[in-house]
């Protein structure tokens, strides 16, 4: 039976500040996004709350309410260091510790099978909590039946659930405020009358990302999608390095490949000895003229299969050209332990294999560059060229089973708008549609139009600042 437990380090950044400055414990303290008047208050302690300082206020406003307020910034590195030390502590109590992607203070622990050692999961949970307290962090822990259930339970100081049905029932009625949502999203949900987690989960999936952003989407997915994977253990990667100084500099790709392969095979044998798998390699080729060429390779999954690495290496070197003969080769390897999945007695492979897609992506990246495989992510912007970004993609996501909407003609958007030399021959179709971007940066307005040019429907705009016309794309 799967028993994920969630350990919630309450307001972790605030606890980091208080551990750093123990003399502030009885004083009003706030964690701010930046040490400047316009910095936002992110977390506050009880004394500051009682003085009227609230999350979301500007630092200057908070200081005007409570002049004795101590504000401090906590960087991502500091938070990550604290989490890393906690993970290594928790690995003494469970083999699998997983970080929460959207809440840095939350960690999932695998509580399965530990009753025999500790008497019961409750005893185990108390031991874990005491150990975390010993490190100077106040925490709450909940042993549940799903990641989301245990997360929600820990946020409300529930220690555990008797059954998965009880967990589901409790979660549905829990207040939505326990979720780590941005303040503005919380306000919008309040306006929509969404007060419980059950009501939040009932919102239509399609609009969550575009309306509320990536973080809310991640929380929503965790809450609504069935869990496929058990708690994933955080591995501790190790770094290996091998270097070869060449007596006579090499310029031929074949000779270079042969030298790199030798280094790589040496490193592979080292990972075999430490039962680790190679996750990523970085090559540094120092040339005679002082230039340095750097290339990074990463397979679909960590591997110590020489054939996989040599294939990626050869694909990448098909397109690599060095400026001058290479005199030194350095190979950096990131290696990590990998949990080998148990063999399945019956094959339940889905129709479309995501692992096969990941292998294909690794080959394409090796051949055409690391940014060649990507996905489109919509952005809450007005200007068409800013409405989406391309993000690198490692794992294929299966599409949600959607209900087709009505047919709409689709526009093509040029990477860079092309200036329209002349408007002769254009027949207006629709417009203008005024789009103003960041007015606070005094960005010029654009007036968008559709216009026929022969058998094409162009999507054009007039830049009011430069008084020039551009083609943004077309309707196809």
């Amino acid at each position, binding site marked *: 039976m799967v028993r994920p437990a969630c350990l919630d380090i309450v307001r972790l950044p605030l606890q980091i500040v208080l551990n750093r400055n123990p003399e502030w414990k009885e004083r009003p303290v706030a964690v701010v996004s930046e040490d400047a008047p316009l910095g936002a208050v992110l977390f506050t302690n009880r004394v500051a709350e009682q003085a009227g300082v609230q999350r979301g206020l500007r630092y200057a406003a908070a200081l005007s309410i409570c002049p004795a307020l101590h504000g401090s910034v906590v960087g991502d590195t500091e938070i990550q260091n604290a989490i890393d030390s906690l993970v290594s502590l928790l690995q003494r109590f469970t083999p699998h510790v997983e970080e929460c992607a959207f809440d840095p203070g939350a960690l999932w622990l695998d509580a399965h099978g530990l009753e025999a050692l500790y008497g019961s999961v409750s005893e185990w949970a108390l031991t874990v909590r005491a150990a975390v307290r010993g490190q100077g962090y106040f925490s709450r822990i909940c042993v549940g039946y799903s990641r989301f259930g245990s997360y929600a339970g820990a946020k409300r100081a529930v220690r555990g659930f008797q059954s998965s049905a009880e967990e589901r029932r409790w979660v549905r009625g829990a207040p939505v405020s326990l979720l780590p949502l941005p303040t503005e999203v919380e306000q919008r949900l309040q306006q929509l009358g969404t007060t419980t987690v059950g009501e939040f989960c009932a919102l239509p999936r399609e609009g969550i990302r*575009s309306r509320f952003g990536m973080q809310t989407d991640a929380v929503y997915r965790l809450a609504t999608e069935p869990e496929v994977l058990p708690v994933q253990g955080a591995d501790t990667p190790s770094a290996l390095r091998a270097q070869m100084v060449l007596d006579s500099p090499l310029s031929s790709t074949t000779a270079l490949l042969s030298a790199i392969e030798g280094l790589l095979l040496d490193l592979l044998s080292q990972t075999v000895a430490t039962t680790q798998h190679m996750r990523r390699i970085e090559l540094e080729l120092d040339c005679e003229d002082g230039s340095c060429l750097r290339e990074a390779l990463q397979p679909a999954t960590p591997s110590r299969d020489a054939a996989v690495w040599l294939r990626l290496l050869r694909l990448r070197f098909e397109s690599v050209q060095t400026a001058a003969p290479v005199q030194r080769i350095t190979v950096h390897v990131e290696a990590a332990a990998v949990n080998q999945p148990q063999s399945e007695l019956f094959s339940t492979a889905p*129709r*479309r*294999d995501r692992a*096969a*897609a990941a*292998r*294909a*992506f690794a*080959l*394409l990246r090796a*051949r*055409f560059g690391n*940014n*060649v*495989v*990507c*996905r*489109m*992510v*919509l952005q809450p912007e007005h200007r*068409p060229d800013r*409405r*989406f970004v*391309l993000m690198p*993609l490692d794992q*294929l*996501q*299966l*599409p*949600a*089973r*959607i209900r*087709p*909407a*009505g*047919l*709409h*003609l*689709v*526009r*093509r*958007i*040029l*990477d860079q708008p092309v200036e329209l030399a002349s408007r002769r021959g254009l*027949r207006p*179709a*629709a*417009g203008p*549609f005024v789009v103003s971007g960041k007015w606070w940066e005094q960005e010029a307005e654009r007036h*968008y139009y*559709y216009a*026929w040019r*022969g*058998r*094409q*429907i162009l999507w054009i705009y007039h830049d009011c600042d430069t008084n020039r016309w551009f083609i943004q*794309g077309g*309707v*196809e």
Partner: protein
Amino acid sequence: MPPRGVRSATTLTSEHSPAADRPGWNFAELCGRICEVHPAEAASDTTASHASAVLTAAVRLIVEAHTRGEPVAWISAGSPLFFPPDAEANGVDLDGVVVIRLSEGRNAAVAADQLVRCGAFGLVVIDFTTVTPSIPDGILGRLAGLARGNSVLVLFLCASGGDHSALGSMVSLRASARSRSGVEGGFLLEIRAEKDKKRGHSWDWTEAGHGPPGLS
């Protein structure tokens, strides 16, 4: 009323009636084949309100692939991309579309070969609308075999190429797509299959819809 799970013979025969077997621009009809779609040829009257609808035709198939839970790959061989909010308005789940951006058209065949071969995609679209496709028949033949074996629809978007296919004889279906202003507002997507090796005859398919925001 037959018991649950049992289908009446009448239902089964009606599904195989000539009406149900009518060809159409849909995923089931084109799955496992190599298809080419290009803009409809120039009409003599250039003031006529019809335009290329190659992207819309491709997005229509993506929507169908997604309703079946099939992931989609879009290989852009130097061509600008489709505007994603429009695709989403049609019902595309953008998370289920992998975009492969290549700087040179000649690499598209290699990428397509990898993606069709891995069998993880239901639809692979290769956008050649701004570059001249140059895929040898041997590679196309191999793609056709892989597409058939892995039940993948390989769709090439090409620029208008006159009477001849831009890709040669290995293409299983060659179609033209255009949009036309509808009589009661809106637009009609008109697709004409000029060559269909499976059916052996040409056919037409029309669907009514709307323009993008602001152009209805």
